[in-house]
């Protein structure tokens, strides 16, 4: 007897739907085993996590707070991944967006009418994110430099730069040595809608819809699809690959940059430590679990945010490390990656040996 993968005759719709669902449950089981090893009751933990994320209105708004940057960076990663451009730089793009917005608020406010500061900060922040994504994109299309490394290395550079700013030249002189800039004036704060949840959430929801439409109903979206799928065919059909990679990455960077802007103007209201806490990396999980679909990204981002918030709650209530949430996230991807094969292939068990088949 042997087990082989056999190609299906057509894509399995059922598998597309079932695989992410099954992945979620498998990762729950794996995490439960891990928790049991460290003598924590998995059921109690999971229930605590769920309550922590959805148990009350304030908790739910916190989940929305975490979901917002995940949605925005997730959308950014998705655009790049559709082109098979492995943008791991959302973290840096987010950070640079935050830095640029802070720069506008801190240094341009005296010269601008108050109502203009926030829109300008958003614009400049998005441009900064786009710029940070544009560097690896340009290196890729001009010199074919591997984007995995360049986007990643630029994360470190952006984060170190931000640290340098709030520890050094931009540090609040009245902050008692606390690493952070002075608080922004209140007219530059991003309006909040519920709890700490802010306008950024609305941006994310609207942008997801727009992005879905752009990817599925415009010529540009069609071109991205062809390039991502088969650059050779795209080139043959006269599609300009370099130009499309550049525009897509500028968009990806701008989305991540917007996430950074929202974090500094909507949550911390200053540039401080804790801006870069891995949203940009988690965004990769979000985008992949959502199978690069903008609408699904919103839902997956919410789910992952729940894991993060739930993880924090567990830490407070049960003394489990907060990195529990990170572990769970990592475990989500493994079954998902393994399962994607089943959309195209199915298992076939061959019981008979050749000679039996002959006689039969």
């Amino acid at each position: 007897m042997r087990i082989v993968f056999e190609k299906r005759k057509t894509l399995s719709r059922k598998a597309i739907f079932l695989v992410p669902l099954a992945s979620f449950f498998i990762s729950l089981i794996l995490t439960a085993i891990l928790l049991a090893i460290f003598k924590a009751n998995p059921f109690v933990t999971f229930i605590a996590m769920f309550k922590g994320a959805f148990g009350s209105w304030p908790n739910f708004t916190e989940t929305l707070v975490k979901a917002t940057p995940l949605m925005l960076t997730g959308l950014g990663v998705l655009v790049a991944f559709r082109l098979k451009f492995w943008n791991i730089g959302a973290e840096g793009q987010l950070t640079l967006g935050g830095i640029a917005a802070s720069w506008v608020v801190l240094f341009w406010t005296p010269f601008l009418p108050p109502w203009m500061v926030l829109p300008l900060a958003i614009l400049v922040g998005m441009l900064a994110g786009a710029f940070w994504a544009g560097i690896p994109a340009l290196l890729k299309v001009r010199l074919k430099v591997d984007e995995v490394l360049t986007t990643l290395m630029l994360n470190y550079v952006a984060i170190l730069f931000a640290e340098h700013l709030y520890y050094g030249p931009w540090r609040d002189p009245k902050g008692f040595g606390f690493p952070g800039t002075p608080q922004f004036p209140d007219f530059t704060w991003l309006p909040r809608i519920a709890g700490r949840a802010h306008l950024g959430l609305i941006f994310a929801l609207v942008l997801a819809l727009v992005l879905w439409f752009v990817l599925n109903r415009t010529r540009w979206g069609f071109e991205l699809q062809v390039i991502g799928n088969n650059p050779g065919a795209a080139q043959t059909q006269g599609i300009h690959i370099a130009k499309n990679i550049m525009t897509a990455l500028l968009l990806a960077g701008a989305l991540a940059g917007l996430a950074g802007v929202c974090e500094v103007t909507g949550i911390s209201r200053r540039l401080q430590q804790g801006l870069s806490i891995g949203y940009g990396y988690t965004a990769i999980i979000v985008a992949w679990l959502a199978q690069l679909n903008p609408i699904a990204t919103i839902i997956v981002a919410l789910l992952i945010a729940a894991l993060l918030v739930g993880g924090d709650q567990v830490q407070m209530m049960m003394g489990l490390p907060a990195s529990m949430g990170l572990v769970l996230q990592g475990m989500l991807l493994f079954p998902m990656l393994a399962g994607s094969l089943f959309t195209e292939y199915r298992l076939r068990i061959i019981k008979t040996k050749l000679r039996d088949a002959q006689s039969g």
Partner: protein
Amino acid sequence: MIISICQPYALCAWPFANFCFRRETKKVTTPILDMKGITKRFPNVVANENVDVELYPGEVLALLGENGAGKSTLMNVLAGMYRADAGEIFIRGKRVEIDSPRDAMRLGIGMIHQNFMLVDTMTVAENIILGLPDLPFVPNMVDVNGRIRQLSERYNLQVDPDSRIWQLSVGEQQRVEILKLIYRGAEILILDEPTAVLTPQEAKELNGILQQMTREGKSAIFITHKMEEVIAFSDWVRVLNKGRLVTVKQTNRTNPQELARLMVGRDVLFRLEKKDHDLGDVALELTDVSANNDKGLPALQGISFRIHSGEILGVAGVAGNGQKQLVEILTGLRNVSGGKIRIFNEDKTNKSPLEIINSGVSHIPADRIARGVAGDMSVANNLAMKCYRKPPLVRKGFLHPARILDLARRMIDLFSIDTPTPQTHAKFLSGGNIQKTILAREIDACRGLLIAAYPARGLDVGATEFVRKQMIAQSEAGTAILLVSEDLEELVGVADNIAVLFEGKVMGILPSNKADTEKLGMMMAGVKLEETTA
């Protein structure tokens, strides 16, 4: 005495020579190879159904069949690349299980695949010893090289063991493949379309090598779809059609006409009807065009020709003589290093693919998987891939999915593309249906000039006929067509004129009604047209 009669180069002496061998090998009663009732299924198709093969020592067996008849699959089963779903294999009378290429090798079976199995970046010697089961942990390359030199002298297979594969010509690479099998002591050699990459003259040399090996008691099976080769190379012939064994014949008791009938499975080989029609203005004109290949070496030198509207110009030549670069410079995928390209009387030298597409040029690429389709997109989107930029598929700046679907349904119908739905991803289609998808898209969008590279390569009989008929229909409708092909029969049957490429130069252009295989073969080997007629 017999050996002197069996001069490998004396083609006409072959039937007699075969006769001599037959008498000698008749004493051996057990076949060296006996395959019984082999069946191999793929998800979409039954590739082999209950096929038997018998081979005696010192014998050359031809496996004849059209593309898609299941010849390669059958031999891949024997070489351990595929597993049969049913059937038995006996070697020297003993039943064997061949689960992997390693098993096959152990049993003395070696196969030369159609796409050579050589690692480009490694040396000849490294390729020859690769995967040998009894290789010492640290191979002594001096010994290996010595042994290779010895073998290459004995079989007249000149090749330097230290050169790297990418430095060798296709002919030399084939020699490495043969050496690889001899070095392993293979007793049963399988050659998959060995002459496809060779000039007719090189093919004769290969025949000589084969005969020398069979004289030493080795046996060979070679796959082909060319009747002349069956007659010239083999002792026995087995004909496959749609995965089934049609017949077994002793070669000297059959003739090409009979074989052709058996192979195609009907009485007459299809004749392509070509109506006489008037040619229009010049659609494509190349003046003294040169271009380099990826390594920066000249690939095309001083190419000049014209194609009129309604004309089909065939391009013949052994693979790797500049066909790829010719197609690429005409479609904007490669820049020329000199000369001019004019399309419909406008200068299109070194223009982008988009500009060339916009001037009405369609392109059927040689590599349909790498350049033709996006496998993870639907058939409908693949069909829309050329005209998605303009109305009716675009309305008010946005794509119109319903119209894309309409277009797809129309084309699926018109070109009888076999797909479950228009939304099925292209990668689930068979090769022939993928090619039909490309053909439908390119012909539909074509406005005057079609660049077609190997449009029927690897397709089954029906699809091949369909593709060829479409070419002719388009030319009758006034399209100028450049048809690059390796299949001389196809070129003579479809094209109006045939240009032969050799080392990036045009050896001459002759009307297809004046072309014959011999003349074309000489030109493919580098003889100019004037010299062949002289």
